[in-house]
């Protein structure tokens, strides 16, 4: 889980062009500089391609971006869930 969390943090940091440290240290992802509607969409696109998963649109809301942990959980669920597309594309 920690490894997954670090990879998610790296993706978020890459999109926002901020150090990974500040992503892991942020209480809420909404507090990160540059975190706006475009960043939300870009982060999701990047996570989907980095992890080769599809996130259920109904799961995407402010709650999952509340913290790095909630976002990591989302990716974890997508990896485990039936929407995983690994190998089928």
């Amino acid at each position, binding site marked *: 889980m920690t490894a997954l969390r670090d990879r998610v943090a790296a993706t978020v940091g890459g999109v926002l*062009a*901020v*150090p990974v440290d500040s992503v892991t240290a942020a209480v809420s992802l*909404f507090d990160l*500089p*540059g975190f*706006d*509607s*475009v960043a*939300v*969409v870009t982060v999701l696109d990047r996570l989907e391609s980095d992890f080769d998963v599809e996130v259920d*649109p*109904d799961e*995407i*809301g*402010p709650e999952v*971006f509340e913290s790095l942990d909630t976002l990591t959980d989302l990716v974890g669920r997508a990896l485990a869930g039936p929407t995983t597309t690994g190998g089928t594309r």
Partner: protein
Amino acid sequence: MLTFVHEAVEEAARRYPTTVAVAAGTGPPVTYRELLRAVHALAGTLRDRVNPGGRVAVVSRKAPETVVAMLATLHAGMSYVPVDPAAPRQRRDFILDQAACELMLADPADAAADRVDLPVLDPAVDPRSGAGTGAGAGVPARLCPDDEAYVLYTSGSTGDPKGVVITHRNAAAFVRWARRALPLAVGDQVAVHAPLHFDLPVYDLYVGLAGGATLHLVPERTALFPQALQRFLTGRRISHLYAVPSALTALLNRSGLRRDGLPALRRLLYAGEEFRPHALAALMAAVPQATVENLYGPIETNVVTRWRVTGPPDDRVPLGRPVDGVTLALLADDGTASEHAPGEGEIVVAGDCVTPGYLGRPDLTARSKVELCTESGTRRFYRTGDHARRDDDGVLHLLGRRDGLVKTRGYRVELGEIEARIGGHPAVAEVAVVAEPDPELTHRLSALVVPADDRAPDAELVAELLRHCRERLPGYMVPGAVRVVSALPRTSTGKIARARLADLLAVPGAQS
């Protein structure tokens, strides 16, 4: 006889005391009776703390307290200056200082009030406290139509934002027209989607509350997520929505809107930028029962034209015709201006809706206005910088904007303001900001930077410049990409060749 916008709201509040006036994302809804009491209580406190006619900064969170704060300021005979809660501290402090605000209304724990050089007063008043019910409460300040009501800050080309002064006459002119043409009434569920430091919510607040409608403040975070926004609009049975095309396009493309529609929606208004015909047609197909209107007007005038979109558009949507009380002319290249003749020219506007000018910037104010002789006589017009064509039937069509002013995410942005900020960084020798058309954002902003020394372009400089921008500019003005280049293209006269900048962006190389 002019009806002040806040007095119309107070009249409705006395008529519909038990109706819900404002509901936020969470927390109990506020009835009109509670709203009125809170406004009067806060106005009483403001009178003790702020000079008559003084300015009050209002942190524009999507909370009922923000609505109370704005109304209380007007009731007390003062002017409010909405402050974006997400604004970088430098920008916030510039605005508070330039507007000479005497007090800030905010939750003292709000990060937007952090280290502010002003007294901070919490606008939250317990409606059961009895405050605001004493003798003298509820007597509004005596106002003149030309007194200032509020100041909205917008992007300025020279590097600093500029404050557009809106008087009571200006605000009342827009609200008078909108209440007649696009009324809101008891039972209407109005989504307040746009940020409260923007001019779109002026309609929601002053037309909605004057009619007894219920306002639903869309939380900032909900507005970031199309799926969450769709759930909010559906759950609240929203009947009236006024938003910018970028937000509506994201809602269309990234939520279940095409499948589910919005069954309760009756009227959809948009403004702020052009709506791409394909996207608008798809949106109209998803909400076939709703009427759709294109409203146009810069912050300096609020709405000056209106067009009812009656069928799915296959071409650019017209601006429509001037609204009541607005004198609109087209200023041709030869210096002549006409209110009626078919032709092309810059849109210029006169009438009660036009701002007296920019706060503390007589130079900008003078440049923005021009005295013209039209069919109805000679008067001063505000120059919008937008070019349009008028057909034989009087319908106006937008042709384009003057150089340097672009729209992104519904906001207008002066590229020069961003260039001035980036150019202020010691590691930057030259900079040009490019706006490229984008189907969802209208324009996507990118910065091309020539570093001050010869060191290799690197990701560190890009990250540093993005950080630099985020500390100084609102999010919608921060470039989405910074590209380090060795030189900018020049014209034969040595000026930056703007037309060739986009080609440079297409070249693979160092990027954000």
